[in-house]
Structures are given as C-alpha cells and as structure tokens.
C-alpha cells in the first residue's frame, strides 16, 4: 500500500496518526530521526525510514531506545532538529538519559514521541501511563487528539523545543496513533542535517550548578505554560453549569456524544497536558457546579484539577474516575451512560442488553487467538525444545513474536516482563532453585538488552540456564525492521553484521548454532547442551519466513509447497494439534473415523518442518507454487 505522506502541500489526504506525525516532523525540517521500533509508535519510523534519503534527513534504527534517544539528543545539542519515537515501555529504557537531558537542555528542536497503549493492543506487559514521566522529568507534554493535530502539534513542538531549549514530549495513545483521518498538508521543509557541537558549561550538570539548572527548568515550564496554554488548550462555550474537560482521543468521543445527544455544554480541550495551566483550568471551572474529566488511564489531570478547584471553586463536583475506569480504553458506549447520568439525557440504546445478546451469539465460536505464522522458525525451535525438556522445565520468555509461545499447545513461555529480562529472571531463579530452565531471547532483543545480562551470567553464574537465541534475522514483531545482526541499516545501507555467536563467544559462552528448520539438528544440539554446565548459548537460526517469502517473490523463485498423504498420516490429529501450523487445516470429520487434514497451498510457506515432525512419509513436497 502506498502512503500519501509525501503528497503536495495544500492537499487534504487520509493519513494514519503516526504518518501525520512523520509528515509534521518533515514539515518542521527534522534532520535526524533515531528510534527502536515499538508498536503503537512503530509506523512513525517505518514511514520515515523509507523516505529519509529522498527528503534528505538522517534516519537510523538504533540498537535500543536509550541509544536512540541519546543519538537524537546529540544531534539536537549540535543544533539539528531531532526526533525519537518510543512506545511507553521504550521510554523506560531511555529514561536514564531523559532527565539529565531535560536539565542541560537542547539547541535544535528535540521531540520525543511516546505512544501509550491502554488496553494492551500491542503490548502484553502493563498499561503504563507515561504522563507521570512528564511530571517526573519536568518535560512539557503535548497531546494531539486526531491525525490533523498529530501533524500540527509535531510541527509546533519543534519550534517550542527550540524556543525554550528543552526537549518536549508528544504523547499519543493507540487510538490516536492508529486512527486515520483527513489531514491538510503543509510544506515539507528542506532538512538541515549539518550541525556543530559547541563546548559550553551548560552541559556541566554538577552541583552547585545542578540546583540552578533545576530552577531554570521550572522557569522554562512556566514560560511554555504562559505562552502556549492558549494555543493548545481551547474552550468551546456552551450552556449550563456542568462542563467537560477532555484530552487526547477522549475529546473526539466527547464531541461525538455531544452531537448524538444534542448537548451544547461547555467543553475544554487540553492539548498541553503538562504543565497543566492553572489559569486555563480556573477560568473554565469558575462558577460551574460540576465538571466531567475525560482522560484514559490514571487520574492525572483529575488530581491536578481537584487541587486547582480547592482554591478557585471548592464546591465543584469533579467527576472522572469515580464513574469511569482507570484501566483499558474509553469507548463511546462506555462514556455514553456517564453522559446520560450527568447531563440527564437519554440516548435510547440499551448497551447492556445488546452486550448480553452478543455474548450469546459468540458462544462456542472457535476463538481466533494470534498464532505463529505458517513457516515460523520459532514454532520449530519451541517444538524441538519441548521434545527434550518436556512440560516441566521453566521457560523464561522475552519480548518478540515468540511471546505467542505462551498459548496452547506450546506453552513454552512461562512469563515475559521486558526486553532482555528472560536472562536476568532465569539467572535469579537459578540462584535459588535447581529446576531446569531455558531462557529464550530474540535476535533484536539480544542486541537491545541481552548483552549486559549475558555479561552478568558469565560474571556470576557457574551453572547458567540454557540460553536459546531465537534468531529470525529481523525485528519481526514490529514490521521487519533491521538490527545490528542483519547487515542493513534503517536507511537500507549495507553494514557489517554482528554475529550473535561471536558476541556470545567473546563473553565466554559455549556456543552452538543450529538451523531452526532442522528438527534433528536442533534436538541433538539441545540434548548435548542440556548436559553442559556454565554459560551456554544456542543460536537457533532461521529467517522469518515472511521475509523469505518476499525475497523469493522478488526473484521469481517459487517456494516449495507440501501435501499430506492421508493413507500414511496415522494419528494425524495428534500432530496437527501439537505442531499447530495454521496451514495444516482440518477438512472434514469422517463419521466415526479420523478427521482428515490438508495443507492449504495458499498458506503454506514451505519451511518443511512438518515433514520432519509428522510420521515418515505422511507429508511430501507437492508441486511448485507459482504465486
């Protein structure tokens, strides 16, 4: 699908929120973009990687978010406009450097785009609310509510960052980043990517200067609040003494519900959520009887508004998390009853009754949980590990496509905490328990946060768990981005590959490399390594089959396709249910007899692992696939 992100100025096109952010950065003349992919922020770097050379800015996928942040900050120190993009957890990785950079400030505009993920669409681990970071780090935070604002805010953020010489946060949530909408485009500015670092005592963040710097940040925040609250925060006048204050996507929900309920009440939109302007809030809540705060996740604005109300309008009733949840996402149907109650209006839809009806028709439907793709090398590696280690070993998981191993029938992921955490957690367990442990980590994750943990294992652990690097040679989960082991940069240039086995050997590990699509080799190697002691790393290498498929298609080479011989497929159901490849589908249940299985040639990606797993002769190469 071709993006319209490079369409001409003045045109109105449909963009994804994240594409609009990319466009906004280009309209601001961004010179350096550095990121580690993390959904729901991934589409910003994905959009920018492909066009960096054409527009003339520098782009890189860094090895992790902290390095990406520092890369962008270094460029901004040298006077070049810079952008880094992270998902909420990505900001945790970068966090160590963020606060000090806020203290010393920047010269070129520096925007940190951060995408929260309420409801966990793309993130398993938690519903972290990043707005607390703005307060902790004392960095202003701007929150667009739709794709047009994604573009406009991004552009303005660069100016404000430069004007006040401090980094700024542009915060979205999934429903802003992944929303689509009409966007009027401005002019793309030719990027300046040449800068100069000037030595200066502004970078000496040591006491007693530290306290001066601390005060200086507060002054800057005051300045931004005074000058820009009226630009980013708006009041739409209305009737009555009950008002609404909304921020982010909730503003769209508020407007929609006001439209369908024919409500004309006062509405305030908060686009600059930190620092929250006391003046703006005071003006809005003065004289009102009640106010409804709409913000997803924690009661961040609500707490601050309550504090302001104490001075300005202590009798006002502030609604928010008293009637709405601080978990998951808001939806129109979730907010509608709150609107009906507070504004005494009737929408006339019985959502609860309809939900009951839906629950009934959904009963006993085959669930569509995410599964390993056909041809996935992780399926093969997990299958082999399970043959050797069985069900009782502890399987430490990490972040990547392989989290899908948490589901039936594999159950080869017992927990997943954060990037690189499998090694540290496995180490901790092994210090106090004699249980068998296998720690899985992906190739991109290995470079991201696995290296310090590996060093620690060598340093402190004589009987380390078996470490299996699931090397599919790409950052697959977020859309096939390159990493230090792929030999290609974010801008598509060739670079020297760092081999995982070389790194592991250099850290003193006993290393084996196995072909992830070769069951026999995998099982033999795992058996051998299970008996070994000390730091040992198995690199199970097999390219993500989706990448292979694209490569083959480009070169016009057909992938092999396999087929089942129903006569020879004894106990076929058992294999179908334990190997669980979506390309192997049940065609019919013969009455009383065994169900028959077939390989769907449209889905099969020809990895050939099923042929090794199923009874001998049950699966054979079918024909040449001409797709």
């Amino acid at each position, binding site marked *: 699908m071709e993006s319209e992100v490079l369409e001409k100025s003045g045109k109105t096109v449909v963009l994804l929120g994240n594409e609009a952010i990319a466009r906004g950065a280009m309209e601001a003349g961004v010179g350096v973009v550095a990121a580690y992919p993390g959904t729901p922020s991934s589409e910003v770097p994905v959009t920018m990687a492909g066009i960096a050379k054409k527009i003339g800015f520098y782009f890189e996928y860094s090895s992790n978010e902290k390095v990406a942040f520092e890369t962008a900050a270094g460029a901004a120190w040298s006077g070049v406009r810079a952008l880094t993009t992270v998902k909420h957890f990505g900001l945790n990785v970068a966090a160590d450097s963020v606060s000090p950079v806020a203290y010393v400030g920047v010269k070129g505009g520096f925007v940190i785009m951060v995408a929260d993920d309420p409801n966990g669409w793309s993130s398993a681990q938690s519903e972290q609310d990043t707005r607390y970071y703005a307060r902790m780090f004392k960095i202003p935070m701007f929150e667009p509510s739709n794709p047009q604002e994604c573009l406009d805010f991004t552009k303005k953020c660069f100016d404000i960052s430069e004007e006040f010489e401090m980094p700024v946060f542009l915060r979205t949530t999934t429903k802003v980043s*992944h929303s689509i909408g009409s966007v009027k485009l401005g002019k793309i500015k030719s990027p300046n990517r040449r800068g100069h670092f000037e030595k200066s005592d502004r970078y000496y963040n040591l006491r007693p200067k530290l306290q001066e710097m601390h005060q200086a940040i507060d002054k800057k925040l005051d300045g931004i609040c005074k000058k820009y609250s009226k630009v980013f925060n708006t009041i739409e006048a209305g009737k009555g003494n009950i008002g609404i204050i909304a921020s982010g996507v909730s503003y769209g929900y508020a407007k929609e519900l006001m*439209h369908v309920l024919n409500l004309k009440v006062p509405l305030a939109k908060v686009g600059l959520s930190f620092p929250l302007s006391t003046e703006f809030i005071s003006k809005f809540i003065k004289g009102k009887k009640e106010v409804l705060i709409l913000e997803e996740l924690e009661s961040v604005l609500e707490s601050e508004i309550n504090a302001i109300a104490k001075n300005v309008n202590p009798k006002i009733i502030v609604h928010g998390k008293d009637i709405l949840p601080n978990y998951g996402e808001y939806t129109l149907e979730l907010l509608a009853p709150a609107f009906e109650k507070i504004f005494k209006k009737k929408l006339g839809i019985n959502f609860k009754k309809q939900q009951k009806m839906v629950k009934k028709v959904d009963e006993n439907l085959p669930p569509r949980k995410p599964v390993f793709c056909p041809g996935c090398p992780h399926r093969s590696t997990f299958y082999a590990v399970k043959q050797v280690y069985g069900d009782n070993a502890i399987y430490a998981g990490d972040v990547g496509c392989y989290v899908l191993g948490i589901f039936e029938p594999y159950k080869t992921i017992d927990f997943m905490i954060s990037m690189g955490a499998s090694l540290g957690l496995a180490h901790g367990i092994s210090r106090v328990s004699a249980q068998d442990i296998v720690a899985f980590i992906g190739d991109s994750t290995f470079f991201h946060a696995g290296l310090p943990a590996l060093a620690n294992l060598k340093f402190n652990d004589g009987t380390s768990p078996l470490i299996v690097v699931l090397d599919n040679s790409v950052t697959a989960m977020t859309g096939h981005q390159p990493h230090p082991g792929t030999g290609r940069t974010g801008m598509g240039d060739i670079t020297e590959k760092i081999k995982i086995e070389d790194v592991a050997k250099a850290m003193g590990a006993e290393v084996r490399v196995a072909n992830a699509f070769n069951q026999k080799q995998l099982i033999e190697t795992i058996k051998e390594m299970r008996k070994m002691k000390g730091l040992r790393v198995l690199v199970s290498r097999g390219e993500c089959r989706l990448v292979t498929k694209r490569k083959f298609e480009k070169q016009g080479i057909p992938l092999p396709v396999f087929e089942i011989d129903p006569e020879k497929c004894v106990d076929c159901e058992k294999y179908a249910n334990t190997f669980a490849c979506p390309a192997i589908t049940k065609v019919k249940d013969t009455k009383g007899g065994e169900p028959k299985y077939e390989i769907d040639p449209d889905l099969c990606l020809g990895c050939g692992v099923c042929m090794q797993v199923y009874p001998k002769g049950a699966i054979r190469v079918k024909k040449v696939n001409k797709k």
Partner: protein
Amino acid sequence: MSFSVMLTGVGGEGVLTTGVLLARAANLDNYYVRGVQLHGLAQRGGTIPTFVRFGKENEVYSPAIMQTDADLILAFEPLEAIRATYYASKKKTTFVINDSPYMPIYGNLMKLSYPTKKEVLKRISPFSRDVFMFKASEMGEKQFGKTLFGNIIILGFAVGHGLLPLSKEAIRKAIKATVPRSVDLNLKAFESGIKYGKGIEKIID
C-alpha cells in the same frame, strides 16, 4: 449525515488495505474522514477490524464506531462477521459477508466446529436489517486468479446494491492510489462487484 463502515476479517486478508482504500474514496468525495485500525499482536492470524467513518466535518469526531451503530459491515470471513455483531443493530446495520470460512487453529484444538452458513445467518439475523453472504473469494479466484480480489468484489457489491454512499469514480481513483501494482484487475473486480450488487450477474452463494 454521517456513515460508519466496519471492515473485519483475519490478518493477511487485506482488511487494512481495503479500509484505507475506502477512507481515501470518502476523502475524494469531499467527506471528512475518521477511522481507526485495531491491530497489534492480533495481526498474526488474529481478528483485525478497521473502522471508517465519514460525513460533514462537524458530524464525525470519534474514530471508533459506537456499539450497535455501524451502518455497514463488510466481513471478509464469516466467523468475524459474527464477532462484529457488537457494532451492529437490527435498526441500522447491513452485512456483506464473504462466505470464505477460515477455521482458526484453536477451533481444532478445542474441538469446536465451524458454524454452517445457515447458523451464521441465524446468529447475525437479530443484529441486522439485511445480510448478503456469498462466495466472493471463490468468485475472485475464478474470474481474476486470486481469492484476494474477493475484497474488491465485496466493495463493488456494496456500491452496486446502494449500500455505500460513495461515488464509483472516487473508489476507482482510490483503487489506483492504494493498490497500484494490480490496478487493472482490481478495477475489473470492482466493476464485476457492482454488477453482482445490481443483480445483473448472479453471485455464487
């Protein structure tokens, strides 16, 4: 006037692309467009609904469709059509369903059976004013060599049958902008979908 379309299906079936195509067509017809793609982990073999809403600028604000409030649901897979009933109602919603069942692997693991067409229609009936269910993938493969053309046939059917208030010209332009690699076949599939929608040619059901 505002109009809400939900597109749903299984990851890899072209739901996202068809959603963008529809949004672009609405934009070309000078509507204000909002929508959202609900993807993430679920992309791999999971359900991926997309919402596209369009109307006058001061009538469309939310990117997501409200429960019960979809005008049109284009379902590229029958199970996902059933799961879309959350956004549907007897009063408002028309379904166009591609009768191309894709049994999820967990269905086999849990020994659940895939509902028959009759059962699908029965489950959807309380949530719809009208349902059209036909073998669009099979028609796409027979006529144009690929099941994926079923999506455009579905879209054409909706236009031909007067279920989607967008101009044919805008959709044609959006096809050119969105799927430039196989424009001709997609345009043909669209025209053929219109004929099915108008009842000029018979669908395979």
